[in-house]
């Protein structure tokens, strides 16, 4: 196994949280926690790797309380396995990360991975508690097992998106929602960019509440997904702004979203996640003329394929932008997150507080951001 050109000398596959804790208590080298390894090229380049820890054997759904709409799972549970178990009770998690259903719950949390369901939130909104193992083998938890809780600091939020650089996420407690009674997807292909932009503007200013709203380019396709009471879905479909809509349901609908995921897979090799505002999405596209893009149009976020890494600093002069995908050479040169000085300073202090020797995923996050 090689990540960013470094190969760990050992790969361990702990069967339990306790076993992992014991391993970390005695391990003195650089540690690389891994889920399904679907996201290993996100983040700053890994610098050292002595011991990789494959978490896929921590794969138990430890407790599922359908009537409470909560579930507690070990970090190595793949999202699809969890969704499958939830579906038996007509429940689910509105998470559809681009890296696919094989991704583990722990990995999704660590990378804060997202997909078209971004319009309804991200994994942080569903996490109610977390158990982690620290670099010295201590086990700690934050949050709890109930859906509403302000007991103690929300450290689970800090661990989310920290790329396993503060601690190893080993168990995640989530709240759930009932499966949408019905979903339907409407797809249109306006003639040009301005047409797509106008269409999206009228959606934003309407009473419609899509659970996904994606604008892909250069083909200018607009995908809207609705999930509600069947009659509310019907009403929304009837009240779509004028365009040549194709409405898909069931297998056709699923296929359309799977196709979009494929589209994401094709973006690259250099993809930037540009953070603007809903009303500036078109402006972003017009200004930077990406070769291809997928925009979470209602969130003001554009994933855009650019050709030249030298554009990144210039774009960052105007917008926050995270490197979504990039070849190793680029990631070696340019920090993934483009942090502000305040963020950099605070995150660095967090890293030092949790992992003073910099042994957890060395270089991946803030410790590799500015060289």
């Amino acid at each position, binding site marked *: 196994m090689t990540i960013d050109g470094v190969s760990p000398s050992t790969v361990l596959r702990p069967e339990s949280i306790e076993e992992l804790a014991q391993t970390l208590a005695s391990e003195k080298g650089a540690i690389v926690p891994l889920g399904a390894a679907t996201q290993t090229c996100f983040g700053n380049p890994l610098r050292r790797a002595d011991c990789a820890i494959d978490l896929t054997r921590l794969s138990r759904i430890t407790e599922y309380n359908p009537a409470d709409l909560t579930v507690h799972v070990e970090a190595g549970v793949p999202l699809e396995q969890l969704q499958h178990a939830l579906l038996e009770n007509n429940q689910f998690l509105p998470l559809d990360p681009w890296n696919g259903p094989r991704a583990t719950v722990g990995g999704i949390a660590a990378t804060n991975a997202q997909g078209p369901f971004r319009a309804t939130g991200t994994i942080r909104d569903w996490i109610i508690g977390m158990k982690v193992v620290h670099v010295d083998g201590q086990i700690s938890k*934050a949050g709890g097992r109930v859906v*509403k*809780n302000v007991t103690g600091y929300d450290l689970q939020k800090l661990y989310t998106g920290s790329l396993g650089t503060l601690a190893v996420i080993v168990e995640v407690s989530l709240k759930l929602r009932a499966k949408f009674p019905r979903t339907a997807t409407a797809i249109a292909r306006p003639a040009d960019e301005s047409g797509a932009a106008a269409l999206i503007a009228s959606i934003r200013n309407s009473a419609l509440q899509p659970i996904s709203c994606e604008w892909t380019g250069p083909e200018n396709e607009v995908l809207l997904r609705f999930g509600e009471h069947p009659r509310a879905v019907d009403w929304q479909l009837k009240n779509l702004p004028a365009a040549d809509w194709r409405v898909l349901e069931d297998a056709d609908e699923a296929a359309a979203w799977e196709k979009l995921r494929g589209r994401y897979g094709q973006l690259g090799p250099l993809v930037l996640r540009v953070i603007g*505002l809903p009303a500036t999405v078109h402006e972003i596209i017009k200004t930077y003329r990406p070769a291809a893009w997928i925009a979470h149009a209602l969130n003001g*976020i554009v994933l855009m394929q650019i050709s030249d890494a030298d554009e990144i600093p210039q774009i960052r002069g105007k917008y926050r932008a995270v490197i979504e995908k990039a070849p190793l050479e680029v990631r070696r040169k340019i920090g993934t*997150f483009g942090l502000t000085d305040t963020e950099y300073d605070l995150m660095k202090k967090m890293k030092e507080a949790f992992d003073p020797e910099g042994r957890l995923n060395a270089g991946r996050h803030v410790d590799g951001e500015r060289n």
Partner: protein
Amino acid sequence: MKKEVIKKLREILGSPAVIEDETELLVYECDALTLFKSKPDAVVFPWTTEQVAQIVRLANEHRIPFLPRGAGTGLSGGALAVEGGIIIELQRMNRVLSIDADNRFAIVQPGVVNLHISQAVAPYGLYYAPDPSSQMACSIGGNVAENSGGPHCLKYGMTTNHILAIEAVTPKGEIIRLGNAAGETVGMDLLGAIVGSEGTFVIVTEITIRLLQKPQWVKTLLAAFHSVEDCSQTVSDIIAAGIVPAALEFVDAKTIEAVEASVYKAGYPQDAAAALLIEVDGFREGLEETSNAIVEICRRNRSYDVRVAKDDEERARLWLGRKGAFGAMGRISPDMITMDAVIPRTRLPEVLAEIARMSDRYGLAVANVFHAGDGNLHPLILFDGRRQDQVEKIHRMGEEIVKLCVDVGGALSGEHGIGYEKKEFMNLVFTEPDLEMMMRVKRVFNPDGLLNPSKIFPTRRACTEIGKHTTTSTAEIGKRVDEVLRGSAR
């Protein structure tokens, strides 16, 4: 505190914006948790972020503790100046700075009253969702600090789900900004850690909040039950059926008695053992069916009366009773303790039954009025502060209730925070390493501990010691709640 410090504070703010007079300070010796009192040395009223930063730097120079305060409606002693020092009262920073209706966010100062935000954005068909029952008085800064909830958080989430970005003054007096108006986390979620940190990480001086479109349609129902058990079973059944009401609130007979005898009179059924105030909202299409499904579940659980509010006026009245419930308790009891704990929703019937047994055992009445949909209990222990025998019992009973909730897998607080009130209970739910990790994060933000000291973390004093404070009469709580609900709180 040294005269020199007061003089410098006056240089920063002008004379009237600094209080040091002993009698004037009395107002600031507690928040809405009147059980604990501790007088600050000075209270200051800044207008600008820069002034806040200057005050903080001055306090640092002199090693004086300081803490922010919003409207003082907190119920866990978060704004209590435990070690004296300077209270930085933010109520003068009360402007809505900008509204971006197109992108659905607003930028506000921390002292803006929660309800005023929704009023300010109403012309755009928008509103701010988290609605603590104290929303007529509490500040958005206090909401951010406590990660406050409210009846509608069942469907729309807590404060943390609605805060996009902040400006803040660090405990060293630097001005920082975190987050972005798109609400997209970049790197670690520092903002997520700050929301709910109870004023112990930073002083928030500007807040970018998410606005929502007003729902197309709303239906409000009141279902009455002859038994508490049937009522709480209904809650579990609604949730288990996958229905997400906008709000699902529980009021028991004692609460109804108090509300109906008060100015918050809402027409609640006085022969009921308990009732549910249920609201569904969203698209008009389909809402009738959802509401019918709820009615059906209520009937199946032997609800003898389900009433649907006919118009906005009736709706508002039903809500007035719920929101005024804490305040109404003064009608039936001279004193009370407001508790706040969370349990898994399926355990409601057994936990409420156990609390009723405790109430009999201790001979102390308990009123239950709470956010049932997310299992967030608010048992109100009613007592008479003049009766020493009762005063001695309330704390033991309160502790027993907390332990009961923890034992069924619950949490110490669902929305009021740990503050000063519950810090000694933290050991019940968190281990040493859990607390150590929280302390590490606190040290990153607040390394010298000058900002809002003696909160959240247990000091390992014997629990009974908290009991000593209870000899202070708590008669003011009811009065205080009344003030809050009339919007006249300080």
